[in-house]
């Protein structure tokens, strides 16, 4: 399995660590129900799924990876920062 890091190019999976679902972070004051859903509730699709991976053995960047859970095909990779997943100023 290889992931194409937007900075480093195609690299072996051993250089990356899975960091969880690629979800936008709710506002701090969003309330318990929304935060509970953010932390615990997940779909479990057999197909494309958006995930966060970190290229920790390489450039250190956090990536939003779209992976087909049925075939492990890598459908797309972007820097998490460019994908709008970076924590905005004023957020925790």
């Amino acid at each position, binding site marked *: 399995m290889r992931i194409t890091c937007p900075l480093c190019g195609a*690299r072996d999976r051993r250089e990356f660590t899975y960091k969880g679902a690629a979800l936008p972070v709710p506002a701090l004051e969003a309330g318990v129900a929304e935060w509970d859903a953010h932390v615990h509730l997940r779909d479990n699709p057999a197909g494309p799924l958006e995930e966060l991976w970190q290229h920790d053995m390489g450039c250190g960047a956090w990536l939003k990876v779209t992976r087909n859970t049925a075939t492990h095909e890598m459908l797309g990779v972007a820097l998490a920062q460019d994908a709008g997943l970076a924590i905005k100023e004023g957020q925790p």
Partner: protein
Amino acid sequence: MQLAAQFPCAGLLPLTIGDVTLTEDTPAAMTLIAPYKGQEKPLSDALNAAHGMGFPAPNRATGKADARAIWFGRAQALLVGPVADPELAAHAALTDLSDGWAVVRLEGARAEEVMARLVPIDLRPQVFKRGHTARTELKHMMASITRVGPKALQIMVFRSFSATLVHDLKRAMEAVAARG
């Protein structure tokens, strides 16, 4: 009690096995340069004025043997050699990493064959050319690898891994030499 300063690979290098040689480089200073948001261009200009090289693009190193700027990960580079000009601090966060990394040089016609046993990327000279650098994994260690000559690679790992690095490189050099 008397404490004596030591280089990271003191007592371990140099080493020659077959036609591949492993030596330690001991740059006077190493400084991590992380540009502030939107400051990439002025930083690169300041770096050029102070040390004679621009800020490197991803997977590239700029400068020469005694003063090199090596891309060191997302939005950061490592200045190896000279003490960083304090003027750079106007455009970037500077962190002194001198003594924090072990720096070795692997040289020889079969250096890439040695590395092929240790890292998951292609370091052959037709692919990994002069001025190219990579952050990658070397036997589970976070490493920085830079081509510094037609037959020479610079390898860096955290200083605390220096003995492991030399051990792994030595075993790979022995294995390549044994194949004749």
